[in-house]
């Protein structure tokens, strides 16, 4: 079983993305192969230099930084969505892989799960 967790909503407006991240970490902690895919407005999770203290929240950048430690296999970003939101090599978080299309990524996982 290989799981892909898809986050398609921008950070901070809802807790569903953070809770989807917890699901990914949980799978990884139980040695279940899992990757994260950010698409649509969800790619904004991957922007460098987020200053969430202005909002009274913790930055999601910190949550995401724990992904490799838990054993999340890959952090993937939809390339066209990155382009739409002005994300490129200069401002994308380290360790993120941009993909040209999401369909082949979805196809190679046995389970695909969307953030609620």
């Amino acid at each position, binding site marked *: *079983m290989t799981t892909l967790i898809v986050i398609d*909503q921008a950070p901070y407006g*809802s*807790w*569903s993305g953070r*809770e989807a991240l*917890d*699901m990914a970490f*949980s*799978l990884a902690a*139980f040695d*279940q192969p899992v990757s994260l895919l950010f698409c649509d407005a969800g790619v904004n999770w991957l922007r460098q230099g987020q200053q969430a203290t202005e909002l009274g929240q913790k930055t999601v950048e910190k949550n995401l930084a724990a992904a490799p430690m838990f054993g999340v296999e890959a952090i993937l970003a939809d390339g066209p969505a990155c382009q739409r939101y002005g994300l490129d090599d200069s401002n994308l978080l380290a360790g993120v892989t941009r993909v040209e299309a999401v369909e082949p990524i979805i196809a190679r996982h046995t*389970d695909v*799960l*969307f*953030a*609620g």
Partner: protein
Amino acid sequence: MSSTALSYTLVITGAPWASQAPQTALEFARALLAAGHRLDRVFLYGDGIHLASALATPPSDEPNWPRQWAEFLAAHQVPAVACIASTLRRGLVNETEQARYELPASNLLAPFEIAGLGEWVEGRLKTDRTVYFHGSGA
């Protein structure tokens, strides 16, 4: 009657009244039992945990989704677990958590229980199908 009986885990992430997720999941659960399948467990996550509130009190001429679910779970002896991280954030606690955090009340509806995401991970591994019931996503 299905020729091959399957085991299911249902995950509900949409809240009652804010979404149709609990209602749709209940109809799905009834249908899969009627078709001869097995419901191994129900896992509430995110806003879905509001389904396990003992304090939901809709007007008497409206459906009470927590109560309907609780009756269904008891009748069919299906274990149902609400994620502990989701419940604590949203103010749903059992007596153990009430004592631990020194809270003024507890409000978990029986037979729902509170446990960690490990229950979800185990459900995915042990059952043939895991089906998700989300809210609007807004």
